[in-house]
């Protein structure tokens, strides 16, 4: 039995439909990342699961039981969950009192509260901050207090809403390390909303892609990233190269796709004549100055039309008759002297190419 099961959940604010017929389930100890752009409905979904709002229609089951009507039972159910909001909210109290409040509300003994708060303060690296007013903390520190306040009650389900949004890189890394530690313990089920692909890929067992209030794809994290179901999802999960084409041959599973002036080979099972999108992740493409002798079935000669530095890597745009975006390291950019008008060969394996059936518009 799943720990949480959501069936046909819909929700509106006034005339605006926020969630449209969402269904999924989460098992005990599983980490589900909800990814999607801002306004996709991720926060609303988390709020409904945390019983902060009553869904317009549909059901949520906890351990096979639907949400109770009575306030007392709802409170009991809510007490085995903890929700960390996107914008860290702290009470105008000391750090200690902020972290202790959940335990006090549960009637925990004073000595036990002190022991647990002390332990969690060490975990989030905030020892010595006990007497500080939480309102005087930085954004990163406040988010650690919010996380500590949620963890100290030892919830069965931890709901995280964009826990590192609005934080600087150092604070983001600390929060990510904390989340990683919780995940390793495997005793807390986590549902995390994020628009950060790498966070989703790094932490989640399962990924749900939300677009415009719909759960457009849900499944194994690796699969969602490499095998998106449609063009919209492909774009969102970072598959930057999505090229229109038509299957012109299928020989023993090797499919040839005509993309205009070129043919791309892939491993798939699509009938000849099928209109498709060819998806290639930018990090799966290798650039060289001469045609490589590698095992890559696809190798195209092209011209560099743009190089954009993105910290340790650079995005190189290449025109090979169709446009390709390629991610290469900064060192490679220097070694290959990549600049506009430079001729290069872009190669990628047939197995890294993902075909998406083109839906009739």
């Amino acid at each position: 039995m799943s720990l949480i099961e959501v069936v046909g959940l819909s929700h509106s604010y006034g005339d605006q439909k926020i969630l449209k017929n969402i269904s999924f389930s989460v098992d005990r100890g599983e980490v589900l990342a909800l990814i999607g752009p801002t306004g996709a409905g991720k926060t609303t979904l988390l709020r409904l699961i945390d019983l902060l709002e009553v869904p317009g229609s549909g059901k949520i089951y906890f351990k096979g039981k639907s949400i109770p009507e009575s306030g007392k039972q709802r409170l009991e159910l809510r007490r085995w969950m903890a929700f960390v909001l996107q914008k860290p909210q702290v009470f105008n109290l000391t750090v200690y009192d902020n972290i202790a409040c959940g335990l006090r509300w549960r009637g925990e003994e004073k000595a036990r509260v002190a022991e647990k708060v002390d332990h969690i303060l060490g975990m989030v690296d905030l020892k010595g901050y006990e007497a500080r007013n939480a309102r005087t903390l930085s954004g990163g520190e406040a988010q650690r207090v919010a996380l500590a306040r949620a963890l100290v009650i030892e919830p069965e389900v931890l709901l995280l809403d964009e826990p590192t949004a609005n934080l600087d890189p150092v604070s983001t890394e600390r929060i990510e390390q904390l989340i990683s530690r919780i995940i390793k313990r495997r005793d807390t089920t986590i549902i995390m909303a994020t628009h950060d692909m790498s966070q989703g890929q790094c932490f989640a067992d399962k990924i749900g892609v939300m677009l415009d209030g719909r759960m457009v794809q849900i499944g194994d994290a690796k699969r969602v990233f490499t095998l998106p179901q449609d063009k919209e999802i492909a774009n969102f999960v970072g598959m930057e190269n999505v090229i229109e084409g038509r299957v012109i041959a299928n020989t023993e599973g090797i499919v040839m796709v005509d993309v205009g002036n070129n043919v791309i080979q892939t491993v798939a099972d699509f009938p000849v004549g099928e209109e498709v999108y060819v998806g290639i992740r930018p990090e799966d493409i290798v650039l060289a100055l001469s045609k490589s002798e590698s095992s890559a079935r696809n190798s195209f000669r092209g011209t560099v039309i743009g190089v954009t530095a993105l910290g340790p890597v650079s995005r190189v745009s290449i025109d090979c008759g169709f446009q390709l975006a390629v991610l290469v390291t900064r060192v490679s950019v220097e070694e290959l002297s990549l600049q506009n008008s430079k001729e290069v060969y872009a190669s990628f394996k047939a197995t890294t190419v993902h075909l998406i059936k083109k839906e009739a518009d």
Partner: protein
Amino acid sequence: MTEIWQGFVEAVKLIISFDPEVMEIAGRSLMISGTACLLASLICLPLGSFIHFHNFRGKRALTNVIQTLFSVPTVIVGLFVFVLFSQAGLFGASGILFTPVVMVIGQMILISPVMLGLTISALSGVNKELVDTATSLGASGRQIAVAVIREARFAIVAALIMGFGRAISEVGCALMVGGNIRGVTRVMTTAISLETSKGELVLSIALGIILLSLALIISIALNRIQQR
């Protein structure tokens, strides 16, 4: 001008020498307005919280009425209390007209709308996401209310101070229901009014200085609280 300056110097002397009459009048003012403020807060804080935390028909209208009563003229409250406690009035039998007790009642009625309205707006000023945070951390309805009140504590204290300020500085109601009886119901504002009309500026100025100092202390306290 010399007369006013001399009056000012004499007034300062009265204050420094702890003149019995000045101290008695100032003490009575503080006692009456302090009691009115305390009793009004005992009613307004729970009532304001109730109005904020419950949804009912006419809530918005009620809030509007409360806000309108912020600036109710003191003489209107005085008239209302006078009618209630005069011999022919509803509570005429109590015989407390022209006593400090009825002055406390009058000031309570006067400052309740301000205290109530500011308490409601103090509670409404608490971030909705903090309420969600408390809810999600497993607080019950009562625990959420306590958390919100605690969060709004500085704004609520500011509401109480505002109420006290209005009570101690009013003259209309105190004069009408207290009668400005020497040694019984004479407070700073009524004494200033009477002494000035008699041309006795020294006592008026002395009491005026004390009243202004109180206003200054209240203003500083409010500023400090609102900065927290």
